[in-house]
């Protein structure tokens, strides 16, 4: 069991395909200001800040020296996790559990339009084995999708169906990235331009510019300020081997482990989870992750895509927000899944609000072909 009740009490998110008007600092400042205003908190209420970002993305060594001031962490207790904000959230959660802080702000950002996302993920390839063959995020994910096609019985049509459902759902969500979350049919998704077979522009999340901010607080702080909270009741995280060749890419053992840890900590079972938000950088990864989580209604996670069980109207909704396919900011879109799940639980998800939203799983991933995974259990 989690040693103390910690809740998500407020947020703001900005996601754009391209914003040439705002620098990273501007984007962070505006998002943090908006989050404070949304939540009715002042900067002085924030005890500690954990940022998430990446030097290579920003083209700056120790990039968060530039975001300390816009993030409001000047002279505050502050640290940075260089991975998706979902991992920064873990550190923030731990800081609150240590009993030294009451309210923590998580800030995750990047600006893909001033960097080549492919070059960046290629720089994540090791210099000896992967880099000489030009491996990057797309190519390794495409290998994963190929293996998945062969082993699971899935077809390109299934991947297109996930893309069409998520992007159409994203079209309803004002927080999604304009131009990405547009209503799309399966045929349109199938006909999209290829990136690396079988991945195409519809089944891959496209990175843009933006920032995600989330506030975490202790139960005492939440009661005192009469805030509406989505409670974190469990979490788990795990990693798999680095080299894709060492892994069975059609499975994500670290996602299985993370889910099991999270559910155990929350003292609940997968069947009592109402919906999940999955960090699907590629459509096939949504099916693969749901399968690893054991989140299914029919015979398999794939069967649920075909039967429509995973849509917002279905019995096992996945990504009612539209998912990362409807808005992806590197280092922020995993945290975005948690943000969307917390809004659902607080009945604040607006146009994409589900009827039944008491308990959710929110997932984020990192690395080539989902090497690392983190899962949270959130409850109303």
């Amino acid at each position, binding site marked *: 069991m*989690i*040693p103390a009740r910690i809740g998500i009490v407020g947020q703001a998110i900005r996601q754009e395909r391209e914003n040439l008007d705002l620098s990273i600092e501007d984007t962070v400042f505006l998002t943090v200001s908006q989050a404070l205003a949304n939540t009715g908190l002042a900067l002085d209420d924030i005890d500690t800040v954990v940022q998430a970002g*990446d*030097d*290579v993305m920003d*083209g*700056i*060594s*120790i990039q*968060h*020296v*530039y975001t*300390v*001031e816009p993030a409001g*962490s*000047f*002279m*505050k*207790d*502050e*640290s*940075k*996790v*260089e*991975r998706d904000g979902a*991992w920064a959230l*873990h*550190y923030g959660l*731990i*800081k609150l*559990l*240590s*009993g030294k802080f009451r309210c923590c702000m998580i800030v995750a950002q990047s600006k893909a339009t001033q960097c080549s996302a492919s070059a*960046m*993920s290629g*720089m*994540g*390839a*090791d*210099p*000896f084995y992967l880099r000489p063959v030009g491996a990057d995020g797309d190519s390794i994910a495409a290998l994963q999708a190929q293996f998945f096609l062969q082993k699971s019985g899935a077809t390109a049509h299934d991947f297109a169906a996930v893309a069409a459902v998520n992007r159409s759902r994203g079209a309803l969500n004002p927080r999604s990235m304009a131009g990405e979350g547009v209503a799309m049919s399966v045929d349109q998704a199938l006909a999209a331009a290829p990136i690396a077979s079988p991945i195409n522009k519809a089944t891959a999340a496209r990175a843009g510019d933006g920032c995600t901010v989330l506030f975490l607080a202790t139960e005492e702080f939440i009661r005192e300020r009469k805030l509406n909270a989505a409670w974190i009741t469990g979490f*788990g*995280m*795990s*990693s*798999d*081997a*680095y*080299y894709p060749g*060492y892994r069975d890419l059609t499975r994500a*053992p*670290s996602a299985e*482990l993370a889910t099991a840890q999270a559910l155990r900590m929350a003292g609940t079972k997968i069947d009592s989870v109402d919906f999940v938000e999955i960090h699907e950088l590629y459509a096939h990864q949504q099916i693969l992750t749901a399968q690893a989580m054991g989140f299914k209604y029919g015979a398999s996670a794939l069967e649920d895509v075909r039967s429509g069980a995973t849509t917002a109207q279905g019995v096992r909704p996945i990504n009612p927000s539209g998912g990362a396919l409807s808005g992806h900011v590197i280092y922020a879109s995993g945290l975005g899944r948690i943000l969307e799940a917390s809004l659902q639980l607080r009945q604040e998800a607006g146009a994409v609000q589900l009827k039944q939203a008491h308990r959710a799983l929110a997932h984020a991933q*990192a*690395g*080539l072909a989902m*090497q*690392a995974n983190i899962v949270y259990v959130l409850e109303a």
Partner: protein
Amino acid sequence: MGDAKQVARAAVTGVGQTITRLKRRDVNFPEMMHEACVLALKDAELQPEDIDLVVFGSGPEYFEGVNEPDLWATDHTFGIGKQHCRIQTGGTVGASTGIAGYYMAASGLYDNVLVVSGDKLSESSVQKGLSLVYAPTMGRDFAAGAPSAVANQARIYQNQFPSVNERHFAKIGAWMRKNALNNPNAQLKLPQISEEVMLGMAWLSTPLRLLDSCPTSDAACAMVIQSARKARESERPKAWIQAVATISEGYNYVDRDWSNPIAQREAARRCYSQLGITKPLEELDVLEIYDAFTSQHLIWYEGLGLVERGHGADLVDQGAIRMDGKLPVNPSGGVLSNNSIGASAMIRQAEVALQLMGRAGDRQVQGAEIGLAHGWGGAIQFHTVMILSGEQDFELSRRKRAERRTVGAER
């Protein structure tokens, strides 16, 4: 808060420092990180499967030329099937990683935490990597890595306190390199070092000469941090983590005074006030500071509240910081004798831990009971402080010091 009984919730129970060289040609980056992890686990008498969570740290990715090197090194740092995450805060990263490990172990969720941090600076051009700290539009054009920035800091300080001269820097440089001779893990070993040798070096960036600067190293450091519950199960020596702080000031607001480290002051103030420390110069036994350059000693002494502003050089004049002085600083030889950046700030914590465990070998400060480890980084604006003690109950460590002093006085 100083009145409340201060009982530590986590302890350092194992330390591992790799062999350190200018170039470690025998290992790649993941292998070097592995080396540190293995040493720390052996030191703590734990097996990899005992570890609940690994916190990984390394500096800017421009040092290794690999983005997210934590993912590359997951296998080598016992991360498969385990909780694994990465901290990155520039020069302070080793300390930020150790502090993250502390919070993890103090949270009640993890018993055995492995923290590891390091960089292999020989893989790239360090100063080019560090020049990327400067803003792309304003600053990078004339950026020349860290020495130019710190030379400015030293000049700003000297302009305010003109009695500080290069002899002070030379003394510090010589003393720290003498200390390094006692440390098997130091990279720079200069048996011939003296004040005169220091003063005879070519200029690096005035007022700093070549040996006023640290070397570049390939090194990693790891520690095992255990929850109090777990740490108490063993009789092995341990160093209890009593207080931590990680504070950052702004990047470059117009009236920022580089010679007055307000973030360091605040980090120290928070730790002291939590522990009821009012006279750090009297109440600490050993200090490990992030001294990438000799001139920073004086500024950091003031930031840590050992002396009033402008009086840092007094401690040098009095010899207070020497091994036989009132408060030995950097018995390890400090960053001036070993700087991989990624490991450096964690080595400060590890060295203080070894001192408090009584396991610092030839560099041992006799009877060290309370120590402070400092980390510095960013664009001169990040500071971390960790205070450790030999006893879990801080008051007990204080009493032991008091008794020791009485005995010493009687003698």
